[in-house]
Each structure stands twice: as C-alpha cells, then as structure tokens.
C-alpha cells in the first residue's frame, strides 16, 4: 500500500519533549490557582463576568430552538384559541370572585396585624423576568434570567413563579442573573407546614423534582398532602408563599428524626417567566448574614438549623 505521511502528521508523532511538559504544568497550575482562589473569594468575578458577556451570543443561539418552537405557536388553530379563550374567561371570573374575597381578607389581616403591632406587610415589590436558559449541566439545577444588576437584582434575591417559590439568585451579571432552584442539593429553604405551623428546612434532593425535609421530629404532626409555605425565617425568602407539597413520609424506628419528601409547587421546568421579589428583610439579612428575626418556635419543633446560603 502506498503510504505517505502528510506534512501535518509527519513531525510530532512523538511528543515534543519538555515543551509539552512545561505547557502542561503552566495550564495545570493556572487552573488550580483559579480553583483555589475562586473557591474562597470573589476575586475572579471580573473574569467570569467577561466570559459570560463574551458567551452571550452562544447562549442566545443555544436558546434558538426553543424560541423557534415558541414562534410556531403563532400558527395555532382558531378552535384551540377559542377554547383557550373560554377557559381563561372562566378562570378569570373565578379568580375575580376570589380576589374580592381576598381584598376583604387582606383588610382583615391588616387590622389584626395592627392589633398585634406588627408591621409586616403582605405586599412585596416584584419584577417579571424572562427565563433565558436552563442549565444543561445535570448536576446543577439552575436557570438564567434576563434581568441583572442594571435592573437592581441582588445576590440572594428570591425568585417565584405563579405557583410557588422557585429559588434564589446566586450570581448577578450586568444583564443576566443565575438562579439556584430549590431542588438543587445545595439549596435549603426555611419552611413551615401550613396546617400546623411547624418550622423546618426543605433541602433539594438533586434529582430535579423533589425536596426533602430531613429534620422533622419523630412525633411531629405531618401528613401526606400537607402544604409547605416559606416561613420567612432567615429573611431571604418572603413569608407565606407556597413551596411544596408532601407526598411521602419515612420514619425509621429508633431514629430521632422523621424524613418527608415533597414535590415543589413551582413549575420549575415549564414556565418562561419568573418573578423577582424584593423582600423587606433581605438587604439587612445580606448585610449582616446573621438573620435576626424574632419568632417564637412552636414548642415541639427542634432548634432550627441555619439555612444554607
């Protein structure tokens, strides 16, 4: 067989000696320096900002298939639109009726709060953000929003959707921000069980669809179907928003704690919009990093472990 080497593969069939070792050493040391410094401080944030700015077109193109499929929805049949319109009208009527009730309840709540001399308002300032991209790394449950530091988004800000709490902002870029979802294994949110007021912590399970409540006392009153709402302890999340619903309870004999599993209420992988909320205690909590919210824990709940940031 007539075998001739092309010029590209002729020379370095064998490694080119110390140059390769040196280059390898250089890049490895560079990476380890980045790792150590970035793991401990924010010193390389400009590098991250710059890279993420440079990669914005790539993210935009990566998001195109979804945008195109969204565009195809313009061509839906008239019947479908009419049906949807009818359903929405019915829904709107129902909601309007409930809203009437809500306004009276809100007024009543306000009066009762005044009686209690507590100034916690129910109204929070919100901003609607578009979900720009979902993290494709299966190990991290994150989404990217199209609002950033220019819109006043800050680190630790709570993010909601129409059905419940989605997560919190972990990184703010000039025009985008990264949100850690409540199902991420690194995320913990202080919650209370709506029916009993029991305070506990809901951690992400990391499988993308569940929360786990590992710190329930063995004798606590918890049932399948109980709704979890954010308790507002720690000051990071506004109080009273639904977080999840319990679907399973484990209690191993002899263990002090009972574990519950819950589905998040928010549609974490479905919507396109998210609400950024400015809660009142957030800035103070961020500044001191030690939440000082005086709330009496119910007698049967354990000492509340500190929420993970």
């Amino acid at each position, binding site marked *: *067989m*007539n*075998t*001739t*080497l*092309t010029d*590209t*593969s002729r020379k*370095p*069939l*064998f*490694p080119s000696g110390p140059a*390769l070792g040196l*280059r*390898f050493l250089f*890049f*490895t040391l*560079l*990476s*380890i*320096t*980045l*790792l150590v410094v*970035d*793991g401990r401080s924010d010193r*390389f944030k400009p*590098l*991250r900002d710059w*890279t*993420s700015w440079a*990669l914005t077109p*790539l*993210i935009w*193109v*990566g*998001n195109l*298939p*979804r945008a195109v499929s969204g565009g195809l929805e313009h061509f839906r049949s008239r019947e479908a639109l009419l049906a949807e319109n009818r359903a929405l009208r019915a829904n709107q009527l129902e909601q309007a009726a409930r809203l009437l009730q809500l306004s009276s309840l809100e007024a009543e709540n306000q009066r009762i709060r005044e009686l209690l001399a507590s100034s916690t308002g129910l109204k929070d300032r919100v901003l609607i953000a578009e979900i720009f*991209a*979902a*993290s*494709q*790394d*299966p*190990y*991290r449950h*994150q989404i990217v929003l199209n609002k950033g530091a220019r819109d006043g988004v800050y680190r630790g800000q709570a993010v909601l959707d129409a059905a419940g709490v989605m997560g919190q902002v*972990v*990184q703010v870029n000039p025009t985008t921000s*990264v949100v850690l979802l409540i199902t991420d*294994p*690194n995320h913990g949110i202080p919650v209370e069980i709506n029916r009993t007021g029991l305070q506990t912590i809901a951690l992400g399970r*990391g*499988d*993308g669809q569940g929360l786990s409540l590992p710190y329930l006392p063995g004798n606590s009153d918890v049932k399948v179907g109980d709704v979890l709402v954010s308790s507002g302890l720690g000051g990071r999340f506004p109080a009273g928003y639904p977080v999840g619903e319990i679907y399973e309870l484990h209690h191993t004999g002899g263990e002090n704690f009972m574990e519950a599993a819950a589905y998040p209420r928010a549609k974490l*992988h479905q919507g396109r919009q998210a609400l950024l909320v400015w809660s009142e205690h957030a800035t103070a909590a961020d500044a001191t990093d030690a939440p000082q919210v005086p709330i009496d824990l119910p007698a049967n709940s354990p000492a509340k472990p500190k929420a993970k940031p």
Partner: protein
Amino acid sequence: MSKALIFLFSLALSLLLQILQLPDALSSLRPSWPLLVIAYWTLYEPKMPSLLAAWIVGVCCDTLFNSVLGENALALVLVASIISRLRSLYTLFPLWQAALALAPLWALHAFIIFWIDGITRHSADLSLRWLPVLSTTLIWPLFVGLLEGRRAARTDNLNRMRLP
C-alpha cells in the same frame, strides 16, 4: 488559514452543543462535546494549540455551568496533555480500539469533575456522572469518522493516504 477557522468554529460549536436544550431523558446521556473536540484536535492535528484551547474552553464551560472557575479547565487540560503524550500509541490503533483505549480518559475527566464537585460540596447522582462517559465512548468513532471522512475526501484528490 482555513484550518484555524475550522478549529475555532469547532470549539464554539462544541460549547453550543453542550448548552443546547435537550429533553430531560436525553440530557443525562449528552456526550461531553468539548472533550471530544479537544481530543480530536490533539490526536489528529498536533500543531494546533490544543492545550491553550482546552484551558479556554474549560473556563467557558465553568462560566456556562456556573461551577468553580478552573474545574472543567483542569479536567480538559489534563486529558488533552495525556492524549498528546500518548499520541504515538493511539494513532497505531484502529479506530474502534482507539475508542476503547480512550474510554479511561473520559472516565478520568468525569472523575476529576466529580472530585472537585465533591470538594466544593456539589453532590449529584452517580449515574449522571457515568452516563456521559459511556455516550462519549460510543460517539467517538462516529465523530472521528465524520471529521476524517471530510478530510479524506479532500486529500483523495491528491492521491494520498493519511496516517492514521
């Protein structure tokens, strides 16, 4: 000149494929595209600055996934330098044997990511870690066949056979 363009384009494309939205079931089977592209250029075009590219692409991956800066960079640089060190060995193998022989390197890549994630307390399901290794191994012969086929078509006109 045009080769350098293809080089840059393939790197950008690998990043794009890595962030492209896939259904959840497929998403965990996604091969590590930057790893494939870097390995390809290291093996078949050793004159390209693959190590530098590995580092830059790694930092881009870290930014895209919001992981600790340097995590993917370290893993990619390590794999790229091992491949360029063992290049003479890998080029002797036929394609399917090379695919098998490269599998430990994909596993090494996954392990480094797993390890650094562990240090920075980012646990994840183990099957999510090893499925990409499997899919990268399976797609390697296809990937190289495709790219080499393009080149073979070009060099056939010159009546030349390439190694490998």
